[in-house]
C-alpha cells in the first residue's frame, strides 16, 4: 500500500450538541482520487474545513506527507502543499482572470512583499499562471475581468488557481456544482488526468462523476464514515444503500 500523502486520524468536531464529524479517519494516497460522499449535513464541509485549517478540530490529527499539520493555520498548510478549491467560488471578482491565477503563483513562490516590480512582468509567475489557465482552457479569457466570466468558467478558474500551487494534494469541494452535463464531463476528464500529478480528495454530489473517477469512496453520514472502499464495494454495501444510495440505485 502506497504511503498516504494526506491523512486524518480520529477527527472530531462538534457545534453545540451537533457532532459534525465523529472520529473521521481517512487517507489519500499518491495517484488516487478519493471521493467523500454523503447526504447534506453529513459533515463534509466541516471535514474539509478541518483538513484545510479553517476549523480547529476538537480532537484528532491531520497529517500532510506524514507530518502533523493540525496546529497550522490555513496559509501554512497551503505552503506545505495543500491546495483546495471552494464550493462557492472564492475569486477576486474585480481582478482579471490572469491576476487571479497570478495570485496563486505568487502564493506558490512566496515573497509577497515586493512593491516595485509589476507582478505580471515577473516571468516565473506569469508563466505558471498562464500555463494553469491553458490547462483548464481559460487562456483566451486571461484579460477578462473575473466578474464577467460565466459560472462554469469561474469553476475552471477555481481549479486553475489550485493548479498554480503545484501542490502535493488537492482538496476539492464540489467542483462540479452547477456545471451542467457537458461541463461536468469535461472537468471529469480533466481530473482523471490530474490525479497522476497529485492525488485528489474529492467532495462531490455528482454521482456520475464520482463513480467514473474515484479509486476509493468514503461515505459520511451524521459525521461518521459508515463505509469506505472501491466503487464496486460501495455500490454493493447494504449499509450505504440503506443510509444513502437507497433511492438512487
Amino acid at each position, binding site marked *: 500500500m502506497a504511503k498516504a500523502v494526506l491523512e486524518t486520524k480520529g477527527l472530531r468536531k462538534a457545534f453545540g450538541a451537533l457532532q459534525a464529524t465523529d472520529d473521521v479517519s481517512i487517507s489519500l494516497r499518491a495517484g488516487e482520487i478519493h471521493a467523500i460522499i454523503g447526504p447534506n449535513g453529513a459533515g463534509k464541509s466541516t471535514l474539509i474545513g478541518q483538513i484545510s485549517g479553517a476549523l480547529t478540530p476538537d480532537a484528532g490529527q491531520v497529517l500532510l506527507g506524514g507530518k502533523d499539520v493540525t496546529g497550522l493555520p490555513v496559509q501554512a498548510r497551503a505552503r506545505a502543499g495543500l491546495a483546495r478549491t471552494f464550493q462557492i467560488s472564492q475569486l477576486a471578482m474585480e481582478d482579471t482572470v490572469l491576476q487571479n491565477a497570478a495570485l496563486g503563483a505568487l502564493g506558490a513562490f512566496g515573497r509577497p*512583499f515586493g512593491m516595485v516590480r509589476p507582478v505580471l512582468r515577473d516571468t516565473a509567475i506569469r508563466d505558471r499562471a498562464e500555463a494553469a489557465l491553458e490547462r483548464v482552457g481559460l487562456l483566451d479569457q486571461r484579460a477578462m475581468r473575473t466578474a464577467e466570466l460565466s459560472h462554469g468558467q469561474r469553476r475552471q478558474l477555481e481549479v486553475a488557481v489550485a493548479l498554480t500551487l503545484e501542490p502535493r494534494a488537492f482538496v476539492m469541494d464540489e467542483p462540479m456544482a452547477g456545471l451542467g452535463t457537458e461541463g461536468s464531463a469535461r472537468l471529469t476528464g480533466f481530473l482523471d488526468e490530474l490525479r497522476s500529478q497529485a492525488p485528489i480528495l474529492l467532495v462531490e454530489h455528482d454521482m456520475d462523476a464520482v463513480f467514473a473517477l474515484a479509486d476509493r469512496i468514503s461515505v459520511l453520514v451524521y459525521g461518521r464514515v459508515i463505509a469506505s472502499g472501491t466503487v464496486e464495494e460501495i455500490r454493493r454495501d447494504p449499509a450505504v444503500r440503506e443510509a444513502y444510495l437507497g433511492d438512487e440505485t
Partner: protein
Amino acid sequence: MTRETLFNLAVLAGLIALPLYAHLAEEPFTITLATRAVILSLAAVGLNIALGIGGLVSLGHAVFFGIGGYAMGILAFHAQNYMPLMEAPFLIEGTKSMPMIWLVAVIASALAALVIGLLSLRTSGVYFIMITLAFGQMFYYFAISWSAYGGEDGMSIYVRNDFPGLNTLVPIQFYGLCLAALVLALGFNGALARSRFGLALNAARQVPERVRAVGLDPFRLRLVAFTISGAITGLAGALFADLNRFVSPTMFSWQLSGEFIVFIIIGGTARLFGPVVGACLFVVLEHYIGGWSDYWHIWFGLLLLVIVLFGRGGVIGLIAGKARAHG
C-alpha cells in the same frame, strides 16, 4: 493611453502650472493654498494605500498626520531653544533640517501604525473603524495633556526649517518640495498597485479566504500596508506643520481623519489620483464657499451626502468612466 491617465497628467500639469503662474503674478497666497492642497493630498495618498487597495477603513489616520507634525514641532522646538531633547545616556539635539525631520516623522509614524495595526487589524469591519477612531482620540487627548510641548495650545516654530540648497522661505520653493514628495508617493503607490504586494493586498480585500488558501497571510499583508500608509501620512504631517510653522492637538482630530477619507471618496475610490483630486477640490471649495458663506460645512456636508448616495465613482469616475482592472 486611457482617459484616466490623460486626466491624471492634466491634474499634474495644473499642479505645476498654477503655482508657477501665481509665483510670476506675485500671488503668494495662491501658492500657500496650493501647498496646503498638495500636502493634504499626500496625507490622503497615504491613507489610500490602506483604504483603496487594502479596504481598511481607518478613521484614525490623523494620528499619523499628528505624529509627523509633532516630530517636526518637537525637533524644531528644541533646536530653536538650544535645548537638547535628551542628555543621558547619550545626547540628542533638536534639528532644523527637513530631511532629518522627515526621517524621524516617517519612522515615528510607521512605528505608531505598526502598533495600532497590530491591535486593530485583529478585528475587521465596524470594529476596525471604531477602534482606529478611538486610538485617534487617545492621541488627541494625550497631545492636549502633554504640557511640555504646548498642551492644548500647541507650539509655534518661528522660522521654517531648512532644506539643503533651497530657500524654504520662498513659497514656490517649499511648494516644489511638497509637490516632489507627492509625485514620489504617487509613483510609489502606482507601482505598488501593480506589484506582487499590490496584487496580494487587493485580493486580501476582496477574498481573504482565497489569499489564505494560496498560502499568504492577509493579516501580515494588511499590517505592512497600514504601516506604509501611516508613514506616508506622517510625512505629510511634518510638511503641514512646516507650512503653518505651528503644531497643535487639532492635527490629531477625528474630523481630520474623516476628511482624509472624504478626499478619497470625492476623487474616486481605488483611483491613483483620487485623493489628489478630492483634496484639491476640498481646499478650493473651502476657500471659495468659505469666503461666501460662514456656514460652508453645511453645503459641503450636503454635497458629500449627494456624492455618497448618488454619485458612485467620484469625480474621476464622472470624467474618466468606469475603473479598469489593470494588467
